[in-house]
């Protein structure tokens, strides 16, 4: 390609947008912007909550509280072995010899005489 032709082509390319029409965005831009703002506001509320919970000042005490509650619930649900076994043995021996029943019957009969 000769120099003049090349220069002309380059110049035409540089000026190719001179007579261009402006492009237009799709219709109802305002409606779409408002819809997007509503969507971002809704998402923003959840982001605020999670950001608040993620603060170390809130997160650590909350975690400690949950762990303490768990520990307390587990501790209170497990029976104390030493006390309950002793109680069980005394109950068994009382039932075997029917001590409580005999005593009460004897008392009743004695009282009737």
């Amino acid at each position, binding site marked *: *390609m000769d120099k003049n032709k*090349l220069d002309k*082509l*380059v110049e*035409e*390319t*540089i000026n*190719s*947008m*001179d*007579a*261009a*029409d*402006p*492009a*237009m*965005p*799709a219709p109802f*831009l*305002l409606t*779409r*912007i408002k819809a*997007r*703002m509503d969507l*971002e506001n809704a998402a923003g509320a959840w982001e605020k909550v999670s950001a608040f919970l993620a603060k170390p000042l809130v997160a650590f005490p909350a975690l400690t509280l949950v762990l303490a509650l768990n520990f307390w619930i587990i501790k209170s649900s497990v029976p104390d072995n030493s006390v309950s076994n002793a109680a069980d043995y005394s109950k068994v021996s009382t039932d075997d010899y029917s001590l409580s029943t005999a005593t009460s019957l004897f008392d009743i009969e004695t009282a009737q005489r």
Partner: protein
Amino acid sequence: MNQADLTAKIQNGDTSVFPDIVEQCQQMVYNTALSIVQNEADAEDITQEVFIEVYENLTEFRQEAQVNTWIYRITINKALDFEKRKKRQKHGGLLKRIFSVRAEEEPINFNHPGAQLDNKEKAAVLFRALKKLPENQQLAFTLHKIEGLPYKEVAAIMETSLYAVESLIARGKTSLKKILEDYYQSSE
């Protein structure tokens, strides 16, 4: 409603002017974003983001600049941020780089919807060449040559001197000529 009325209403804290701002500036915002990102869907997305930012900062607007200049700045920042994000995504990730197809690195031809039919091909070549310019030269050239803004307004938008804008555009044109010459000579 003209620029002065819009500015006055915004300064009085009247956010009801927002629909007027969208109506008046949508074409300007969309075209600027389109010239920078060279993709209609992305430009549309950026346009929405720009107006959301305008709405959120409406009460903080001071008359240090014209409303148009302020909105132009937001648009340019958003569009350039978008481009940087896109480049980072494209170049980021070792695995992605290893498995990516080489052909993807060549920019896709962008056909501006407003370009005249007989100039469509040349306009596509121009936009492709513009991508190869340094960011500030590309910006100055786009605002002056494609958006048709005077040097003074380009200087206000880019927050630089008139002389700097003239120099940027002159250097941009020289670089463009070189890129285009190489392109046409290699495509013979």
